[in-house]
């Protein structure tokens, strides 16, 4: 039975979304993404080098936009205006591509999202026809507001971007998931495979990560581990875990027929 991730009317087999930053080179980026099985990959929009080596390889040579769903982000934007401007450029760059990742940061030390600016940007982008996946705080009220604005997915942080601290507030994530009618994905903070599995076991529709793979000692192996973790977590969620029981221990082997 197929269990597909659906975002903005498009379906995906993989529930692992990955970033393309912080790798040694483009070849490693490509190998890690292949190992992760990701179909959606995030990219940043930056000024092109002018007057430098012509014919220099680019990310797009290694990751052709025809093969993947690009998710241009607004990393590094600290205001709604900059984020909107960046994504309009991204849309032009990617031939009218509508699916985007909105993130508006609050300060350079924590990279914590500025939700006031994020909400302002989300309103403009949704009105402008974008399909907005939005990086946000793990505040259930904010998440609901972003859904009401018309975002196509909310992506609360597990912990700070690049921190690898794992899921710090599973309870908030659970409230967000229970109240949401759009996909909830954990974005940021995943450190290792068990973190990704926990996010999926909580009922997240997917996980987005970059540093956990790129900064591993062996990024390609970690990409494979993350793929399995997301699949395992999803299966565990769908299977429905047994209830936790503190005292009523129950042996798995029959208590009858013991030798005496």
């Amino acid at each position, binding site marked *: 039975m197929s269990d597909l991730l659906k975002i903005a009317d498009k379906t995906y087999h993989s529930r692992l979304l990955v970033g393309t930053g912080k790798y040694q080179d483009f070849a490693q980026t490509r190998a890690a993404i292949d190992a992760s099985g990701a179909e959606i990959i995030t990219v*940043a*929009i930056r000024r092109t080098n002018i007057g430098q080596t012509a014919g220099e390889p680019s990310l797009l040579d290694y990751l052709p936009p025809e093969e993947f769903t690009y998710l241009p*982000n607004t*990393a590094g934007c600290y205001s709604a205006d900059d984020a909107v*401007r960046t994504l*309009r450029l991204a849309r032009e760059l*990617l031939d009218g591509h509508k699916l985007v990742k909105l993130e508006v940061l609050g300060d350079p030390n924590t990279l914590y999202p500025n939700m006031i600016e994020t909400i302002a940007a989300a309103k403009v982008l949704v009105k402008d026809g974008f399909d907005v996946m939005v990086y946000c705080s793990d505040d259930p009220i904010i998440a609901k507001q972003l859904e009401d604005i018309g975002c196509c997915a909310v992506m609360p942080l597990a912990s700070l971007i690049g921190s690898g601290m794992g899921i710090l507030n599973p309870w908030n994530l659970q409230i967000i998931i229970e109240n949401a009618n759009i996909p909830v994905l954990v974005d940021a903070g995943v450190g290792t495979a068990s973190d990704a599995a926990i996010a999926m076991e909580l009922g997240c529709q997917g996980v987005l990560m970059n540093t956990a793979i790129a900064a591993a000692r062996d990024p390609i192996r970690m990409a494979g581990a993350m793929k399995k973790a997301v699949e395992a977590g999803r299966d565990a969620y769908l299977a429905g875990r047994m209830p936790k029981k503190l005292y009523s221990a129950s042996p798995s082997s029959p208590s009858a027929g013991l030798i005496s």
Partner: protein
Amino acid sequence: MQVTINGKPRSFDAASFSVAHLITSLNLEGKRLAIECNGEIVPRSQFAETQLVDGDKLEIVGAVGGG
């Protein structure tokens, strides 16, 4: 004329030329990029007919690795 490209001033001999011409002169032909002139996006289909004039501020961007 002088225009600002990605925050840096650049001088050109001609008094005016098209965005398409600019891309050629910067060796950016065939690259996937998006251009903003004075805060407004210049669609790719209009590169040939969009004329640049002295003082224009341009942003030329592409996709790079990011999370």
